[in-house]
Structures are given as C-alpha cells and as structure tokens.
C-alpha cells in the first residue's frame, strides 16, 4: 500500500533531483555537442553549461533560477493508489516542501490577477497526468517546466492536403521563430494528429523520452533523424549565438486524427532536460530511475 508520507517524500526527492541535476543522457549529449562545435563562442556556451551542471550537482543548487511550474506524470497500475484526493494532496505537500527547502522559485501565479501564493500551489497546479498500465508499480515522473522554453510552444491545425511537407514546414518555422530564446540546445517534442489538445499533450509527452531514443515505428524514427539533422544545419546554436548545435534531439509522437484535420504541435525543452522518475512497488519498495 502506498502511504501519503511516502508519496510526499518521493515527490520532494524527485523535484530536488530534477532541479539540481541534468539526466545522464542529456549530459552525454551536451558533452558530444561540446566536442562537435569548433567555433569559440558556441564551445564556450556549452562549456559554461557543463560546468554549471557540475556546480549545481556538487552544491545541490538549482541548475537554473527558473525552476519551472510543476507537471507530473503518474504511470502504472493506478489501482495501487488507494485514494486520489490523498495522493494528490501528498504531491502538493512534496511540491511545497521542495519550494521551501531546495529552494525552488515560487513561479505559480493566478493567470489574471498574477497573485503569487508563494508555494507553487494553485488551481490545477501542480498538474498531474495519469497514464494507466498493467505494470506492477506506479511510476512518478517530475517534469518541472521553465517559461523560457514553454513560451516557445506552437500549435497549428493544418489541412490534410498540407501533409508531411506542411508538418516539416511548421516545425522548421517554429524552431526559427524560437531562436535562442528557449535556451538552446533544446529538445523538440512534436505531436502530430489527434485533436488540438491531444497534439500538444503528446508533444509534451515526447519530451519525456531520453535523448537518442527513437520512435518504435521505422518511418517516424527516420523522420526524427531527418529533422534532427536538418535543424542543426540552421545555425542558431547554443543560446542563439550561432553554432552547429541548435537541438539535442527531436522526438515525435502521433495519434490518429479526423479525416478532415491535421493538427501539429511543437513543445520545447531547454538544455537542462529536467526530469526525474521513481517507481514505487506494491510492497512499498522505491526504485529511483535514471533519467
């Protein structure tokens, strides 16, 4: 049985890890990017990024002062959650504790009055996504999202006749419009199909995949590779100061859509690649997962 104290503690630890360290796949990709760049300016940006990750981890300090708003994915056997109200309250307490103790910047405000309660808690925030599976565990994924990258989100209802060409066009336009603002090198999440909300939702879900992970379907995997290669020819570079590395990866998810529509969405993650996950088993065993 999952106790509420256990959930609160897991959430606190996940937020601390997500805010103060980058996942190993992201660090690996940033190191490779550093090796690949040959001009002094982009090389220096990547060096500062890698050094920053080192300093943050050593001192348990946030990687970035924008510690994000708090998005969670809860995946697994949802029957292990005895009481959803209690479960969500425990997640909120974990967020409050992390805000106080890591500390995290209080970012969550009322969208109209802009009033800031100071604890990152408010209506529908933290936002929790549930993905039910038949696995013998519950996986909690902390996915704090900074505004720099989230503000560079784009969605369009293409016409079916625009097809794959239109999709590629929209992605390239979004990347060019974003420039260095989302703190490049970024990871691009693309959602194709579904409805407008589904497209953006799966674009965000795509960002949960580790760098280098390819879509299980060959055609989509090839499209990911093609876009990755093409985008890095654009020359925006780390922090928009020019260079060979504009993105670390491109992840695509798709859903079947109405015969009369073609939604496409782009969601971006900054170079920190902040995410952390842990699995909780039925017997109360907790497994901290890498990346």
């Amino acid at each position, binding site marked *: 049985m999952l106790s509420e104290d256990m959930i609160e503690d897991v959430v606190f630890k996940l937020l601390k890890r997500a805010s103060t360290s980058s996942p190993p796949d992201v660090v690996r990709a940033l190191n490779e990017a550093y090796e690949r760049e040959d001009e*002094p*300016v982009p090389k*220096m*940006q990547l060096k*500062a*990024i890698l*050094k*920053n*990750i080192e*300093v*943050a981890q050593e*001192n348990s*300090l*946030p*990687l*970035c*002062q*924008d*510690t994000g708003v708090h998005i969670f994915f809860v995946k697994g056997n949802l029957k292990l959650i005895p009481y959803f109200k209690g479960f969500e309250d425990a997640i909120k307490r974990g967020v409050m504790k992390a805000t106080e103790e890591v*500390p*995290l*910047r*209080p970012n969550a405000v009322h969208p109209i009055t802009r009033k*800031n309660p100071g604890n990152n808690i408010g209506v529908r925030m933290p936002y929790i996504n549930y993905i039910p599976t038949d696995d013998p565990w519950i996986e909690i994924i902390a996915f704090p999202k*900074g505004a*720099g990258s989230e503000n560079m989100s784009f969605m369009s209802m293409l016409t079916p006749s625009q097809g794959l*060409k239109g999709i*590629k*066009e929209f992605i*390239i336009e979004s990347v*060019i419009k974003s*420039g*260095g*603002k989302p*703190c490049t090198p970024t990871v691009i999440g693309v959602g194709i199909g579904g409805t407008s909300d589904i497209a953006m939702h799966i674009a965000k879900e795509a960002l949960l995949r580790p760098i280098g992970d390819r879509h299980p379907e060959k055609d989509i995997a090839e499209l990911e590779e*093609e*876009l990755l*290669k*093409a*985008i890095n*020819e*654009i*020359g*925006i*570079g*780390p*922090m*928009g*100061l*020019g260079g060979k590395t504009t993105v670390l990866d491109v992840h695509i998810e798709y859903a079947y859509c109405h015969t009369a529509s073609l939604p496409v969405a782009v969601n971006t993650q*900054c*170079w*920190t690649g902040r995410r952390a996950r842990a699995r909780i088993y039925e017997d109360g065993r907790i497994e901290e997962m890498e990346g």
Partner: protein
Amino acid sequence: MVEYRLKTPLSEEDVRKLNVGDIVYLDGIIYTGRDEVHIHAIELAKEGKSPPVDFKDMVLFHCGPVMKKDENGEWHVIAAGPTTSSRMNSLEPEFIERFGVRAIIGKGGMSKPTVDAMKKHGAVYLAMTGGAAALAANAFKKVHGVEWLEFGMPEAIWILEAENLGPLVVGIDAHGNSLYEDVEEKVRKNEKKVREILGI
C-alpha cells in the same frame, strides 16, 4: 576575440574597446533589474525623482534570482541566471539614456533601438549562458542589499558583489554591432539548405 577582466563601475573607455564576440569577466557591484525595475525607475525619473540606486557607469543584470535569508537575516544567492532580455526591449533605450548604465547582462539579445542606444551612449550587452544559474550564483560572493523587494523576489533590485563573473560574450558592442543580427542573417541563408534537405 579578446578576453577582458573588468571591474565595475565601468568607464566609457572600458566599454568602447569591446567588440562583439569578445569575452568579459566581471568583478564588483552589479544590480539586478528586470520588467518592474525598468517600469518604475523610468516612472520616477519622469517625476524628477531618482531610483534607489545610481545606475551611472554600472552593470544591470536582467535576472530574477532565487535568494534565501539565513538565521542572521543575511541574504544569499541560490540561483541567478539571466532572464530573456527581449521583454525589456521597449524600455531599454530610455533606461540607458536616462541612467547611463554601461553594461547589461542578459540572454537572447535585444532589438535595434537598444543597439542604437548602446552605440550613442557607450554601453554594451553581455550575453550570459541562459540557465547557468549555479555558475552565476557561485560568482556572487556577497549580497550588499536589496531595494524594491515589495515587487517580489525576482523583480527587486539586488545589489550583488561579483567575483570573476563569466564568461560573458559581448553580444552587442558600443559600435552598433550585434552578434544576434549576424546569427539571424546566417540563419536566413541556411534556411534554404535546410529546406532542401527536408524537400520543402
């Protein structure tokens, strides 16, 4: 590309010698200020009053830091990376002209009117690596005080003492050059090639 280590306050000569792509490390007092600081400082100046700190020859850091007060009431910098400077585009030329700030630290660059104001009044834009907040926090050795904390932690003026803050890339120099405009130009050229690769 030349590397400089400069100490605040900066003279006009200090900043006029810098060119885009040069690297700067900074020592001395630096003021944070973003949206609210720009709005209120300019409002006060219009009423003939002065903001609580004198920005003349000083460095303004576009940053909303995470700060923490210890048991003795002393403030410490927890995380202090740059915020997106383009939000201040509409107010920066006037801010530079009125207050004589010599350098602005931020990320993402600023628009043409700021580039022009920097050329006219002798100021530069220093690009700090976005998100590198732990690195920056490490370079701030002391917090000398805070003004306008009533606007909230990220929007206040934090008076910070830097030691070897950097590397900062000169993104806009005092001669009308902008690294961001150069990159935009290159991106426009590269876009053709990218479209070819993608068959669009």
